């Protein structure tokens, strides 16, 4: 079976972290990815840039910031390679669910 592990954390606490703590967490993530790869279970993973970079699309409206509507639930995702945010928003507006739900657009860490 395929499962998605979605990581949530207090982003402001992470950004205020000391360099030393940050280095420790970075090392822990590297070790975790190595363990997943060794077990042969990893299909893909990405870290997301902070929600300050997020946009949300509903019908034709583009809002700054992440998704913030508690009556809707995460239903799926598309990971795209496009030149810029404008191109990403163009595709976000065309997602069928943008007509009745919300599409959050998040740049991925490279």
């Amino acid at each position, binding site marked *: 079976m395929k499962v998605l592990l979605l990581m949530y954390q207090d982003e402001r606490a992470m950004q205020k972290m000391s360099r030393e703590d940050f280095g420790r967490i970075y090392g822990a993530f590297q070790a975790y990815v190595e363990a997943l790869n060794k077990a042969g279970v990893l299909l893909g993973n990405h870290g997301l840039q902070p929600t300050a970079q997020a946009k949300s699309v509903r019908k034709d409206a583009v809002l700054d910031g992440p998704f913030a509507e508690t009556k809707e639930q995460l239903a799926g995702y598309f990971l795209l390679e496009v030149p810029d945010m404008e191109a990403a928003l163009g*595709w976000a507006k065309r997602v*069928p669910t943008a007509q009745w739900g919300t599409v959050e657009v998040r740049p991925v860490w490279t």
Partner: protein
Amino acid sequence: MQYLLLIYTNEDAMLSAPKEASSQTLAAYAAYTEAIKKSGAWVASHRLRPTSEATTVRNPNGKKNVLNGPFAETKEQLAGFYLIEVPDLDAALSWAARCPGAAHGSIEVRPIWTM
């Protein structure tokens, strides 16, 4: 640049939609996915099974805490994801507990629709 499009919808409304409306939606998604693939922008996409099948794992100080249901803490933000292939939910939950993010945040575990 890579971007993740995260799709949010009212799940109860979707699950109670008439068959005709559901097949219209499926067809719209099939056309959309084909358009992205044709443009060369597509990297990956998946549809998630309902949140009634979600589990949330936290592991602060090695004290593992497994809750039924999706993530529901508004002070935390989505920071990333892992897509893994495992035999069952138990295996998924144990990988979730080992994720460094579980030590200082939450990991939502969502099974994926297979089409």
